[in-house]
Structures are given as C-alpha cells and as structure tokens.
C-alpha cells in the first residue's frame, strides 16, 4: 500500500532516470556507511543501520543490501585457484594480457554496479533514497543520498 502511494506521489522516480532524480529532487541529507575493518583490509562495510534511514527503509532490507555488497567484494578479492592462475598468466605475459582482457576484480565491480543499479530501481528510488556505488567514493563509504519526502498524502 505504501509502495503504491509512493509510486503515485513520485511518478518522476519511475519515468525518469536516476540521474534526473539526482538533479531534480532536493537533497535532505546524506548518510555514509563506513568500512568495517574487523576482518582485515578486505573491502567490507558496516551493517549497522543508520539512524537517519529509520523512517525510510526497512532495517532488514538495508542489511541485506550491505551483506550482498560485502559478499560481492569478498568474491572480488578472494584468493583461490582462479586468482592465482590469472596472476601467474599475467606475470608470464609481462602483464600485457590485461590489454585485451579484464581482471577478475573489474568483472566483479561491473557486477556490483549492476546490482546497485538494480537495488536503486527496485527498492531505494521508490523510497526517495539513492545508493552511490562505493567505487565512486574510493571504496571508503557507501553513500546514501536521502531526498526530501514530498508526499503530502496520509503519510507512510
């Protein structure tokens, strides 16, 4: 029901691209999800639910998103047969092989970008939120832009 109301009051979120969303709607706040270093230097983000998002999104959904992102980054940095093979092959070809093929990490980053786009379209944009891909912030934070809630209806 709430989703329908949101779709009614936020038609521009559905028909316009997220880029337009960034430019048209005024930004109420920005929330930053910091890195979690308890497992070392690998890229992981804290799953602690930020207070500013309490009124906007489900805690579970947020945690699911962050956990999925963490698992994707773990996949990118995983040490295993595949990464060793890639490393050795690259060394033998004096790293010229990367002129024609992408590294495993880059492939996973593309997957992450698609996942974030998908999440934004399905879950975050309808709630007036926007996830920014961490790679655009140097893998320091997951930035969530909170747009002003223009809904004048009976509320959420």
């Amino acid at each position, binding site marked *: 029901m709430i989703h329908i109301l949101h779709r009614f009051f936020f038609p521009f979120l559905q028909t316009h691209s997220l880029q337009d969303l960034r430019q048209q709607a005024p930004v109420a706040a920005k929330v*930053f999800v910091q890195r979690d*270093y*308890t497992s*070392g*230097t690998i890229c992981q983000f804290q799953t602690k639910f930020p207070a500013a998002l309490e009124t906007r999104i489900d805690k579970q959904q947020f945690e699911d998103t962050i956990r999925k992102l963490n698992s994707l980054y773990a996949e990118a940095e995983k040490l295993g047969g595949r990464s*060793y093979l890639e490393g050795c092959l690259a060394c033998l070809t004096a790293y010229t092989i990367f002129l024609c093929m992408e590294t495993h990490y880059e492939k996973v980053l593309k997957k992450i970008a698609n996942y974030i786009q998908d999440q934004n379209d399905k879950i975050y944009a309808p709630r007036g939120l926007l996830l920014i891909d961490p790679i655009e912030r140097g893998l*320091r934070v997951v930035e969530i832009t909170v747009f002003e809630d223009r809904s004048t209806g009976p509320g959420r």
Partner: protein
Amino acid sequence: MDPGMTECQYSQISTVASSPMESQLGKKIPKRKWQTFPGRNKFYCNGRIMMGRQTGVFYLTLVLIVVTSGLFFAFDCPFLAYSLSPAIPAIGAFLFLFVMGMLLRASFSDPGVLPRATPDEAAHLECQIADDGINSPGSGGCRSPPRTQEVVINGQTVKLKYCFTCKIFRPPRASHCSLCDNCVERFDHHCPWVGNCVGKRNYRYFYLFILSLSFLTIFIFAFVITHIVLRSNQTGFLSALKDSPASVLEVVVCFFSMWSIVGLSGFHTYLIGSNQTTNEDIKGLWSSKRGKGNYNPYSYSSVITNCCAALCGPLPPSLIDRRGFIQPDTPQTAIQSNGTTAYVAPQPQAPMCDQDQCIQGTKFVFQAATTPLLHSDPISLGSVPPLLGKIPLGVACSTLSYPAQHAAAASMPSRPWEGQALAHRDPEHEANRQLYPQAPGLGAYGPSSQDSLHQDSVRGLVKLSSV
C-alpha cells in the same frame, strides 16, 4: 597549451587544482580527473602514466640499466655467443626486457592512492564523532575528529589514524606519503629509484623488478668476468682489457650495485613471506619483542600463502579514476568554496569547519585569480621542500634509507613532541593546519599558493622537529 586534447603528449600538470570557473565560463573541453588531482603527482600521456614528483633518480636508474646492458650486448655478447653459446645473449635479452617492463610498470602505475574525502564525507565524519560525545558538544558545531580509532583485527588491536590532509581515517596498513601528499593503501615506502610510491597495486611489480634486476646484475657480472677470462687465455689479460674496455665499466657498475640490489631482494622476500610492509617492519609493529601476544594479524597460515597473496593475488583497480571526466555535479575535494550552497542540509554541517571553508575559499580565490598566470608559465617545482627533497635523492633505496624516508612519510609515535598537548595530532599535518589559516593574511602568496603552503608546511615540520 591544452593537455586534455592531444594523446601521449608529455605535459606536466601543476599541482594547483584548476578552478571550476573555467568550465563555468563556457569552455567546452571536459576536464579529466587527473588534471585536478590534489596530490603532488605528475601525469603523462593524458593521465595514463602517473609518477611521483621527483623523477631525477628514476632517469638515473633507467640510464644505468640501459647503458650497462647495452654495453654488455654490444661488446661481450658477440664473443660469448661465438665461443660459448648463443643462448647467453638470448637469456640476457629476456632478462633485460623483463626488468624494463617491471620497472616501467612499477613507476608508471597508481600505487594504490586513496582519493581524498568529499566535503560531505569529511563533514559527516567530524559531526558524527562530535555527536557521539567524544568531543565536548561545544560552541558552534563540530570539532575535528580524534586522532585515532581502534579496531580489532583477528584478535590484534590496530589503531586507525585520521589523516588531516585527506580527511579520512586511514585503512589499516595505509600511510600518508608526504612526498606525494597522498594516502596510499598498504604503503611500503616511497622509492626514489622507481620515482613513485610502492603500495598495494604496484608492490608485485616492484618486487619482480628488484628480483629480476638481481638476476640481471649477477648474470652480466658473471659473463663479463667469463669473457675477460676467456680472452685472457687467448691473448693475455691486459690486451683482453684493451680489446674490451666497456667490460671494466660493466664490472664496476655490477659489482657495486649487486650488493644493495641482492640485499634488497632478500629483504623484500622476507617481507613477503611474513606479509609485512617495510613500514611495519621498521616500526617493529608485529615483532614479538613488543609483547608476548603480539603477532601479525594480516599474515596467512603459511609462507607460501603469503607469497601467493602478494604476488599472484587479485589486482585491485585504481581508486582515483584518473582518466575519468569530471562530472559537473560530482563533489570535488578542496574546490568547493562554500559547503552550504550545494545542499539543503538540516544538519549543522555549514557552520562546522568554518576554518576549512575559509581556507578552501581562499585557495579557490587565489586559484581563480591566478589561473591565467598558471597556464602561461609552467609551475617550477624546483623549489621543492628542501628537507624532504634531499632525503630521497642520493640515498640508496636500501634498508638504511627507510628510516629517513619513513620519518618523512609517516608519523612516528616515538617522537618527543608527541607527548605535548599541541601535538596530539600528526605533527606534519598539524603544521599544515596551523599554517593554512595564515594564508589569507599573506598577500604575497600568488600563483604558487598551494606549493608554497606545502613548503611552509615542511618548514613548520622542520620547526617542530627542533622542539
């Protein structure tokens, strides 16, 4: 002079960020991110090549390797190929090409620079910590965050330091290189021979470079001696030397460089096996001397895993995206003059960091006012901070030099001034922060405002070091 247009044109870019006013004035050429990069790096080939600031010693390295190898191929190889085997010049050529490839790769790639925080992030970090009650909720907004944060990694407590230049809490194993003015991930050291920092992304190239260079040096040394000996058997020692004078030069160069290069390779092999950086080893962070339960939390279970991880692990991408185009709505670091204009933020972000806003605003004004001057006249970086400039030049990239470079590159907790109330902050960054507020008052800072601020920060550092 338009570096953005031509491909592969060697153009040095000034470290002063170009002002966004240019794009506002209607210039259609979109700027690439390397052109406004805030660190002290040099970019070539339209952002494809990235090096540290002082490249003189790098050219010396290139000359030494190329000349010595060239002399070997020209004077010794014909004789050796004829009398021993043609495999010798072939192996020599392979080694030489591998060494050059690894050297260029180590020198030209991004070592793992961490991009600086956007103004929003920096503001959020400072206010968040203030709200948590760590700083006293005082008059008018947030203060700067405390210097360190502690985190437990694999059972060891690690301190994350706040970098005042980059406005981030440095990830574990990262360090700020004062020569390049960047935070670098898994910072090993700044190598003047390679002309770049050695960090997460180029450590394997650096290691393969010194390893293959040791092989090459030993190879050339051994075969030049063989050549002289074989010739002496035929014609006598003195005439052998006369026939092949270049061999003497090669032997001398190889002999003197062999010890340091082989030693360095051995040292780095040890570091890789124990999964430490030069930085950590010098500080003795994980040595058992510090305490009974002290161990390296980053080390894997075995030496082989450590080696594989360092050399064959996944290659992380560059975080600075130097060839990307600057988007008009992207938050830029150190360019925004007034954080309040862009966003309607109910949080008290605007009054916070007034000092920083003032500083950035002043910088922006200086840059804008002096932009025409900058373009007509390349910024000469010759008046580089004398203290830091002298430390790497002429000092071998060996274990002996690491303390000196390390002292310049990172803060050491054992410095005497740490105990003072003034320096609960990183001393060199404290110097930066102290000097910036004076910038508005010093009208003499013209076109090289940012460079002279850096120089002043170093002078400040020197003053602090005399305390």
